[in-house]
């Protein structure tokens, strides 16, 4: 199979205006992926599917990723004039990257026995802009997996034939696989509580001022 760089240039030649970015994966797996822009995603996907050399006719896996807001620190060496002398000063700058959600597709070719080619799409934010085009019209096998992403991450896939929750019930309002999800407090008791569960379970336990100190008890069960 051709390299990701070659695939990228061929996509850009075939789909007018498509913006493709290669996302490097620094882990030992070295599975780099293509970040495709939402506007041309369906056209790019269709190209990957029908192109005779690639012919990625099998979408094996679709999954979601939640990226929270994060701060990236950069250190740069700048030459400055301090006290009339030129010196190298290390400056640190902070860049705040707002969070977003991603949908990741793993594509294989049954015909050519190659793959995976990994493509991603990225939402604009984590709140209102969680819209992505659905690739179900291109790969039918993505239907339930996109529903699952909608259920657990809250990405709305435009053009999906039947976008409903698939694992949780319809009345459910949260997106449990998001990193800022808090599960409902329904542990009344734990036989051996520790760490986070201990903190959660303490609310349900009777207070014991003689051991914990009366000032630390805030809520009564």
């Amino acid at each position, binding site marked *: 199979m051709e390299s990701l760089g070659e695939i990228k240039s061929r996509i850009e030649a075939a789909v007018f205006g498509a913006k493709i970015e290669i996302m490097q994966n620094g882990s030992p797996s070295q599975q780099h992926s293509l970040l495709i822009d939402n506007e041309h995603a369906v056209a790019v996907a269709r190209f990957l599917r029908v192109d005779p050399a690639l012919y990625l006719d099998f979408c094996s896996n679709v999954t979601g990723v939640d990226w929270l807001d994060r701060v990236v620190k950069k250190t740069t060496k700048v030459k400055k004039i301090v006290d009339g002398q030129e010196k190298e000063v290390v400056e640190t700058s902070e860049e705040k990257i707002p969070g977003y959600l991603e949908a990741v597709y793993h594509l294989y070719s049954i015909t050519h026995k190659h793959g995976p080619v990994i493509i991603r799409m990225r939402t604009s934010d984590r709140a209102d802009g969680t819209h992505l085009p659905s690739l179900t019209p291109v790969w039918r096998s993505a239907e339930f997996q996109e529903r699952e992403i909608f259920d657990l991450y809250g990405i709305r896939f435009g053009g999906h034939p039947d976008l409903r929750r698939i*694992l*949780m*019930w*319809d*009345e*459910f*309002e*949260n997106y*449990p696989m998001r990193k800022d*999800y808090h*599960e*409902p407090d*329904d*542990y*009344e*008791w734990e*036989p051996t509580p520790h760490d986070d*569960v201990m903190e959660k379970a303490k609310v*349900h*336990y*009777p207070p*014991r001022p003689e*051991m*914990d100190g009366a000032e630390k008890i805030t809520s009564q069960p």
Partner: protein
Amino acid sequence: MSQIDEQLRTELQRQGVWVTSMQDLYNWGRKNSIWPLQFGLACCAIEMIATAASRYDIARFGGEIFRPSPRQADLMIVAGTVTKKMAPQIVRLYNQMADPKYVIAMGACAISGGPFKQGYNVLKGIDRYIPVDVYIPGCPPRPEALLHAFMELQRKIDEQKLTGANKAEFLKPDQPSEFPVPRFGKHDLEPSANRDVFQPPTIERQS
């Protein structure tokens, strides 16, 4: 008849006269013909199927007739993880069973949520909504454990009284035989437990 002298009974048996009570006869029949409800939820169901098959053979205890309808079943074996999406259906099936009815909670998930206890989508024990007669720990319990639970249930049925003040619960008209079905809420099942059935144990913490 239960007041009959034990010595007299053995003496009569020695003479070829067999005496029993209506209660013993009734319970003897009931305990040896328990029809379980045929459903499984997760990997424990595989062990339940093994128990019903020839090697472990639950038919030796009269429990081989798995019924596909709750109307014909006496025993609900909750075999596996009860997810929150499944819990209302389990309670509804229990409500549709005719009295007298019994519940075996099979495996760690059915008794407490098991390895999934800290998840958002698993019910932390079926005893939050329906009364459970026998609990079997294990992940999954072996077929012998299910047979043991079955024999425990038989012992429990055998000890039930038909008359008097401490007669069996299902004979008391004021005792509920149906329990409220939880609703799907925005964040969790509502209510998260039936307080009439489920009381969390009090734990003595040591520091």
